[in-house]
């Protein structure tokens, strides 16, 4: 009994550093952001100008930049999710088929995920989307077309393209993992029974992938909501690409309106938490399942 007790207290002691650090990491900045969000605080223009209640919160959502930023966020997150889930599923099914050099193809497909965001942003912006010297411009001219001004005329579409390229590997890999855990006999049995590929996909594979796709959507949403570097190095928020994250960044660091930016930060935290709740549920269930 005594021994058991000491094991438990040692266990607690071992967890303490991690728990204390994460608690501090969560609580200290969070309360500070909340504190600033109720203040009129302009570090470069007078500093702390006192409390102003919910003024920052109303001003943040009534500012002319707010709704465009919500629109940009929804377009980027929504489009990237749709593109990566659909193409990720197709690609995963393809990669699961017998072929020569499967390992190498997989390596090729996964590569974009390991490219740092500033590199992928700048490589796409310059070497592909540059309206004069980019590869797309060469290609367009080859077909006798007028090259496009990608990042100014199709700004959101261009950002979606870059970010989708980065996240397609993630979706593919997770869906592929799920496909590979599928019971082979079941598919073969269905094949024997004469179920065509479309039926096999709709009735066996897709239901099996439901959970993996849910996970992909939830985790990607969390990451996509806070996309920053890709926009920072390409449009710097111009041409309607100011997402909520980028807008808050500009309010806080560029125009140094800390109170207003902090109120925006609180909105972003609430938004992320709504997604996080769903993610936690799925993850929590899998924790329970593993215990059994």
């Amino acid at each position, binding site marked *: 009994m005594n021994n058991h007790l000491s094991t438990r207290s040692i266990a607690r002691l071992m967890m303490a550093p*991690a728990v204390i650090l994460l608690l501090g990491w969560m609580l*200290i900045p*969070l309360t500070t952001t909340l504190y600033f969000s109720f203040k009129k605080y302009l570090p470069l223009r007078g500093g702390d100008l006192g409390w102003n209640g919910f003024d920052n919160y109303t001003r943040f959502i009534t500012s002319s930049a707010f709704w465009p930023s919500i629109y940009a966020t929804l377009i980027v997150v929504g489009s990237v999710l749709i593109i990566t889930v659909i193409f990720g599923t197709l690609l995963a099914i393809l990669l699961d088929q017998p072929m020569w050099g499967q390992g190498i193809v997989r390596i090729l497909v996964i590569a974009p995920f*390991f490219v740092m965001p*500033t590199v992928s942003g700048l490589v796409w912006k310059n070497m592909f989307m540059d309206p004069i010297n980019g590869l797309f411009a060469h290609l367009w001219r080859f077909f006798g077309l007028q090259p496009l001004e990608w990042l100014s005329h199709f700004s959101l579409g261009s950002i979606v393209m870059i970010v989708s390229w980065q996240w397609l590997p993630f979706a593919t890999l*997770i869906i592929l993992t799920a496909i590979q855990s599928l019971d082979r006999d079941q598919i073969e049995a269905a094949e024997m029974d004469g179920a065509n590929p479309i039926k096999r996909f709709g009735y066996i594979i897709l239901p099996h992938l439901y959970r993996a796709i849910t996970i992909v959507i939830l985790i990607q949403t969390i990451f996509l909501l806070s996309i920053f570097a890709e926009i920072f190095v390409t449009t710097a928020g111009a041409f309607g690409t100011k997402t909520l994250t980028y807008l808050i960044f500009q309010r806080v660091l560029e125009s140094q309106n800390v109170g207003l930016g902090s109120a925006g930060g609180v909105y972003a935290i609430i938004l992320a938490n709504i997604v996080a709740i769903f993610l936690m549920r799925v993850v929590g269930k899998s924790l329970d399942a*593993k215990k059994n």
Partner: protein
Amino acid sequence: MPRVVKKKRKTINTLVAWSIGLLIFFPVLWTVLTSFKTEGQAINDPPLFLFFDWTLENYSIVQERSDYMKFLWNSIIVAGGSTILGILIAIPAAWSMAFAPTKRTKDILLWMLSTKMLPAVGVLYPIYIGFIKLGLLDSRFGLVIILMLINLPIIIWMLYTYFREIPEEILEAARMDGAALWKEIIYVLTPMAIPGIASTILLNLILAWNESFWTLNLTAAKAATLTAFIASYSSPEGLFFAKLSAASTMAIAPILILGWFSQKQLVRGLTFGAVKYFNT
């Protein structure tokens, strides 16, 4: 007959998959190729694929003009430092949750995960101003701490899932022998956990290397990592495609190679054990 059909199908699969794979990989390949061209060849119309005068001059220009090695060193320190620190803090925590779970273990794990969901921009100012006050702005030490904190939940989760796979009977046998707790950890647990720890380190190095919110916002000239170094190319000056490519190639090469070894860990590490990983 079916064998012929199968072979034909396999050939088609191979062709389609390789084409798509190369298409997805193309931007990386193009960057690497361009890094060996002269600036003039880099923008040549029609584009030059293999038949140009291969040169290494861009690599030396990049190093000379902006001291690439300094940024590389910063990246290594920040990614390596935050990973080592995170692992040291996470191993005891994950160990105790995996082998001495309590009723609250699940809640603690989920709570740790929830701290990962905190959008960085929501706490940008407190961290920024805190860093100024503590003199940590543009310091490698500050970045090490921040990156350790943002990745700590992932490290703990990954280690937890690995530790749980260690059969408890083995630990119990050690306990029967009267091994002390520290002996149990050093002689029994550690050797069995090393592959898992190595995988965790690998994935975390990649995440820290590519992190580009805090590295961009909390550094200037002194502690800037490769992500920030590359970002400095966002205001172009004359012809710079070849130089950009050389800098980019150097920045992504080490992690691309590590990444290819860590495909399996990627799924485990980023899904928090919510996707079953049988074959990969």
